[in-house]
């Protein structure tokens, strides 16, 4: 049976995050020919609607309100529920981002529905769809099915391939006006630490440094390598706690969960809490002077050696590679 699916587009600094397009792809798999409707919430989001359509959404519903400029669970749930009541979808897909993690359980609770969180893969289509998600800090996976009723999932960024962008697609864009009242939380202040450039959770290449990097300066070569490879720099908790870098770079259970094509762990021992955030990466490289380090257990390629020697050499090799004519 075809299903109508609602997805939530998520913007950062006025631009849609990739995970928004991934929710559309997931919704298509679930919908089996039904309608995929994208919801955009914010103070000014109308201009983003077209891009959701180009990535496969059939329709877009926007809710614009000054209270939606910043995320709060009260404001966003009121706006989303208003769209839900209008659309009465069969399924909902959100990103498993900070926003999605905070909002989805509240919505599921309001809707008395199940919620399958942090899905990394969908097998089958429509009613037969089965959802795979990591459990036990990423050491195992479970396959979960809805027992009926509203199907509600969140997807881990960078795991479900978005559809190709098609600039010629068109779709209906409508707006809904919603009264937003009774906000219980006030955001008094936000300290943005997110670095400019590539969004870690969406980066295709991540060079991550650990306590082994030894200083703030020690991160410079990692930044250079990341820059050469068009990637981003990440870090372990160890490096953040030692003040070598900012907490916004932290990868792991308490930090960001990432799934890049290439993850290079430099001077990181490979604690379970770190691995929970990166073990799904497609190719993992470990550079560590300790051959017994845990990180080698998940690495596809490893170099046992001093990172202060290895990383500068890598920079030179990559420069050579990038400088050589394409083959």
């Amino acid at each position, binding site marked *: 049976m075809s299903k109508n699916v609602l997805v939530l587009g998520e913007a950062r600094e006025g631009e849609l995050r990739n995970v928004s397009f991934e929710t559309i792809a997931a919704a298509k798999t679930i919908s089996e020919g039904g309608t995929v409707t994208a919801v955009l919430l914010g103070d000014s989001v109308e201009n983003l609607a077209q891009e959701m359509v180009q990535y496969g959404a059939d329709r877009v519903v926007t809710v614009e309100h000054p209270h939606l400029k910043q995320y709060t669970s009260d404001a966003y749930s009121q706006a989303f529920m208003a769209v839900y009541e209008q659309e009465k979808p069969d399924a909902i897909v959100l990103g498993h981002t900070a926003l999605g993690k905070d909002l989805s*359980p509240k919505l599921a609770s309001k809707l008395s529905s199940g919620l399958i969180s942090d899905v990394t893969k969908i097998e089958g289509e429509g009613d037969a769809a089965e959802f795979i998600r990591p459990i036990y800090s990423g050491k195992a996976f479970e396959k979960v099915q809805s027992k009926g009723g509203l199907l509600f999932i969140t997807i881990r960024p960078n795991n479900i391939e978005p559809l190709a962008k098609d600039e010629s697609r068109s779709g209906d864009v409508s707006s809904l006006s919603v009264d937003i009242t009774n906000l219980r939380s006030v955001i008094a202040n936000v300290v943005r630490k997110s670095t400019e450039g590539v969004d870690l959770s969406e980066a295709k290449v991540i060079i991550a440094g650990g306590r082994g990097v030894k200083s703030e300066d020690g991160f410079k070569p990692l930044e250079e390598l990341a820059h050469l490879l068009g990637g981003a720099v990440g870090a372990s908790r160890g490096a953040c706690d030692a003040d070598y870098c900012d907490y916004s770079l932290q990868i792991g259970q308490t930090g960001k969960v990432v799934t890049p094509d290439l993850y290079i762990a430099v001077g990181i021992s490979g604690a379970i809490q770190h691995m929970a955030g990166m073990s799904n990466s497609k190719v993992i490289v470990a550079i560590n002077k300790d051959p017994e380090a845990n990180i080698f257990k998940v690495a596809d390629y490893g170099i046992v050696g001093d990172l202060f020697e290895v990383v500068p050499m890598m920079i030179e090799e990559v420069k050579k590679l990038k400088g050589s004519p394409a083959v």
Partner: protein
Amino acid sequence: MNIYALVKRTFDTEEKIVVKNGAIQEDGAEFIINPYDEYAVEEAIQVRDEHGGEVTVLSLGGEDAEKQLRTALAMGADKAVLINTEDDLDEMDEFSAAKIISEYLKDKDADLIIAGNVAIDGGSGQVGPRVAELLGINYVTTITDLKIDGTSATLVRDVEGDSETIETSLPLLVTAQQGLNEPRYPSLPGIMKAKKKPLEELELDDLDLDEEDVEAKTKTIDIFMPPEKAAGRVLEGDISDQVSELVNLLNKEAKVI
């Protein structure tokens, strides 16, 4: 102040995990308080010590969870409640868990409920916000700081590395992020005292709940280990040769650069 901390007994994921016939093998495994719930218990104790009141730790699970509750009592919590569903339920999901926990809490007039932001085994992060919604109270997730002044609360929330300062009021449910505090170890006198502290055990019946009321909305149909990765290749030879081999492999074999 009437404070509750939600404590889940979890598999210690630092240990080896064995899956047999689509289930995690629990025999001989280590079980611990979910690490994020240790922050929750610690915070609850600190809030009580500053503002007075009582800390109750609450766990939903089987008989075995008594051990984790006793540990929380030894840390300094005042009372414990174990909702034992062992005899009633074979299947449960986040909906069921939140429904049962909130059913217990609904007439307790809690001022502050502290949960972990995520359980390291189930990993959904749903239970805290779901409970708050069912109780009709506000929640703030992944907090790294909490200050209470009368019925107002000021919190710092970790949002993918950014920090938001949030002002709100009690009653409130918060979920603990790493960095909130340093959980204390139970002291020896604490452990002795914990043995005598009240631990109430309840079943679904005591909460006027039927199995149907809490029937899971989702179903786990399989549990499996990640596909066995080919053993990683640790390169050999001169470091400079290793590095050029690595870059070459990433380019030609793995095709990721």
